[in-house]
């Protein structure tokens, strides 16, 4: 393939942080968990006790996948990490596939590159090679870390391989999605939707114990059974088949479609803007409507599913002796925290889109009209906070609906909303942090994802990792406390709200004073 290696070099040189960073993040997670689990379950007796609590119940499997070989350290590690790996790895795979193919095409760079002596498929193939390199690095780094921590060599290799395999399977799916959609934004929306369907389908299959694990890539991570005496071969073949079929399909689509276009040709739009679209806020609403609806549908589905599965999940802790309502509350608080983090993630993504409006030059163009920067900022902030609150309410309602449906008791209906809304100040604070970064420099909004990522780690894995209190405090969601199990921490909520307001005030000033990006 002419030009392939040169393009691989360009991909790696333009985004080394993407390739290396994600692999290091996964490796850091694996290493810290493996070390914590090694200490906590040093005795075989404690491992047997751990395994015993799981026998016969696949209750928490909705969140962490099915657990196998729980009497071994490796089995416990794979089981405990399932909470995060089932979310992180697919999303990283999808992101890298789109980042290295469609996002590059969106910049128009491909038009220059493919005018040279470059094979038609070389840019996409090179981009996907860079993306797949992350999976390879993830495998190498994680395997090295596990072997160093005295986990069995064969099991470590298989487990690290399973992480890379899941990432790779979704890189393939991402590659296909990226070729079919008309641009990177649409690709991300569709790709995340694919992941969510896959994740929720697996949650239902695992929680209900249905024998359908062969259908879904998300299930294969556990089915590889890395620490079993005789691990099955079929999940590896399934991953290999999925990846090769999607890469091949992506290649077919890439050769059939026009450069810079999707599979479906764009249909003509209206000759005039609707008459209600007269103010900056209206324009921004129109631009973000699609992604906001996507988040609302996805978030609601997520909230409902876990509300619905709460009954099964809370059985687990009941076995270990706590009272039933305590357990339900503990489980619900986990889910409403996830609701809050999803709402914050939506706020950050919206802010990123609006920051891209500026870097593309459109904000500078629009602000040549008599619209003050403060008004534009106000419209942006209103849009981001309003949508994340709408999303939060929808998810709260859906958690309540899910609880009611799962328990078959309408009394649970109003449990979701108050608990979810208790996290409003945390969501607001995270949204305003993203907005403030955008006000200082539109290119650094991405940093806010670290806060959400850390929030997820603290929410799901703080106890396992034995995180000190100060580290947990880095996540604003943690400040509120575990509502509804704990009472709502009013002072913390007040502090966060005030912080958000103060930060917003500083952000407006910063946005008014700085240079706008080219326009």
């Amino acid at each position, binding site marked *: 393939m002419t030009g392939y290696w040169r393009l691989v070099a360009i991909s790696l040189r333009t985004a080394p942080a993407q390739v290396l960073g994600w692999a290091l993040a996964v490796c850091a997670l694996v290493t810290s968990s493996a070390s914590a689990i090694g200490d906590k379950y040093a005795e075989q007796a404690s491992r047997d006790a751990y395994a015993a609590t799981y026998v016969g119940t696949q209750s928490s499997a909705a969140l962490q996948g099915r657990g196998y070989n729980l009497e071994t350290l490796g089995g416990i590690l794979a089981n405990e990490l399932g909470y995060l790996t089932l979310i992180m790895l697919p999303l990283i795979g999808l992101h890298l596939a789109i980042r290295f193919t469609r996002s590059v095409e969106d910049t128009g760079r491909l038009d220059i590159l493919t005018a040279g002596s470059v094979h038609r498929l070389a840019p996409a193939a090179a981009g996907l090679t860079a993306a797949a390199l992350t999976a390879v690095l993830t495998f190498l780094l994680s395997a090295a870390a596990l072997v160093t921590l005295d986990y069995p060599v064969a099991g470590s290799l298989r487990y690290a391989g399973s992480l890379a395999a899941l990432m790779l399977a979704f890189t393939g799916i991402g590659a296909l999605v990226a070729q079919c959609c008309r641009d990177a934004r649409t690709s991300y929306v569709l790709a995340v939707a694919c992941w969510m369907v896959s994740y929720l389908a697996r949650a239902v299959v695992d929680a209900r114990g249905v024998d359908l694990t062969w259908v879904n890539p998300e299930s294969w991570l556990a089915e590889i059974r890395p620490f079993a005496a005789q691990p099955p071969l079929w999940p590896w073949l399934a991953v290999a088949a999925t990846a090769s079929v999607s890469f091949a399909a992506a290649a077919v689509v890439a050769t059939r479609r026009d450069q810079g276009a999707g599979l479906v040709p764009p249909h*003509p*739009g209206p000759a005039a803007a609707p008459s209600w679209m007269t*103010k900056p806020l209206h*324009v921004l609403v129109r631009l973000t409507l699609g992604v906001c609806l996507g988040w609302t549908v996805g978030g609601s589905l997520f909230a409902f599913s876990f509300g619905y599965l709460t009954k099964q999940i809370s059985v687990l802790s009941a076995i270990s002796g706590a009272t039933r309502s305590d357990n339900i509350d503990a489980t619900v608080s986990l889910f409403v925290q996830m609701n809050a983090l999803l709402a914050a993630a939506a706020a950050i993504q919206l802010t990123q889109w609006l920051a891209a409006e500026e870097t593309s030059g459109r904000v500078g*163009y629009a*602000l040549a*009209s*008599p619209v003050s920067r403060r008004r534009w900022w106000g419209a942006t902030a209103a849009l981001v906070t309003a949508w994340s609150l709408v999303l939060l309410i929808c998810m709260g309602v859906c958690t309540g609906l899910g609880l009611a449906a799962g328990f078959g008791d309408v009394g649970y209906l109003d449990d979701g909303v108050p608990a979810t809304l208790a996290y409003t100040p945390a969501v607001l604070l995270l949204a305003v942090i993203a907005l403030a970064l955008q006000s200082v420099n539109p290119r650094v909004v991405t940093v806010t994802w670290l806060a959400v990522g850390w929030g997820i780690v603290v929410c799901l894995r703080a106890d396992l990792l034995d995180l000190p209190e100060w580290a947990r405090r880095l996540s604003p969601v943690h400040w509120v406390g575990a509502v509804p199990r704990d009472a709502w921490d009013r002072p913390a909520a007040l502090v966060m709200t005030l912080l958000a307001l103060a930060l917003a005030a500083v952000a407006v000033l910063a946005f008014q004073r700085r*240079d*706008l990006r080219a326009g």
Partner: protein
Amino acid sequence: MHAIEAEALCKRFGRTQALDGLDLAVRQGEVHGFLGPNGAGKSTTIRALLGQITLDSGRARIFGLDCRRQSVQAHRRLTYVPGDVALWPGLSGGSCIDILGRLQGGLDPKRRDALVERFELDPTKRTRTYSKGNRQKVALVAALSVDADLYLFDEPTSGLDPLMEDVFQQCVRELKDAGRTVLLSSHILSEVEALCDRVSIVRRGAVVREGTLADLRSHTLTTVTAITGTAIARLADLDGIVDLTVEQQPDGVHTRFRVGRAALASAVGQVAAADPTALTVEPPSLDELFLTNYRTDTAVTEGTPA
């Protein structure tokens, strides 16, 4: 009060001095050409006028309003076509025109439709599928549909075909007849010659020449070629004659020189006195005028008679 008054604008981006003491004055009701090589600071000046960037020093005013502190009031009176038009990818061209026009205020729907017709724009196409020229048309229609006092055009016709270029020139003439002010940044010399009352030539962040085209012409050199029977006397002694070449050829003495405005009459007098069999006097071409001014400082001083 001038439409645009910029005094000693300075702006530094990292290590580049984008504006280095730039002065610009645009009178009300004139079409002012804004010329200069790539990277000279034309777009930076326009961004400063729009209040998009803070100046390190200097002050810029539009109709007496400070470009930074009173930008909203200033923007009520102007409309702008960027050099690199970025439109919202998911929307149709017509939607973009309406959004931009409504944000600006005072969009005239009849005028909009007439302009869409004149520029032969398909407003239902998604902006993603537009070519560069069509994106430019969207921005032009949006700006021209609005009744403003000042029109800021940053290379508005790059990517337009000659027919559309012609439509654009008609539109600017109509603006001029209506007494509007236009700042036209352009690389197309014929366009500048056809439209502009006065021009400013900017190089390395400062204006190096400013005036009417006739003014600028008077500072450049006329080329004279003549064939005479004998060599022309005392030509080399005249002040202001440059690039003098004299060649003896079978049909006579070929003389060629360039001369500034001050010495033109006496030089041509000398040539006439030598009884030429052929004589051509070429006025300075606009291209030459700009090329001289775009190049280095030394070239300019050489070309300007003392």
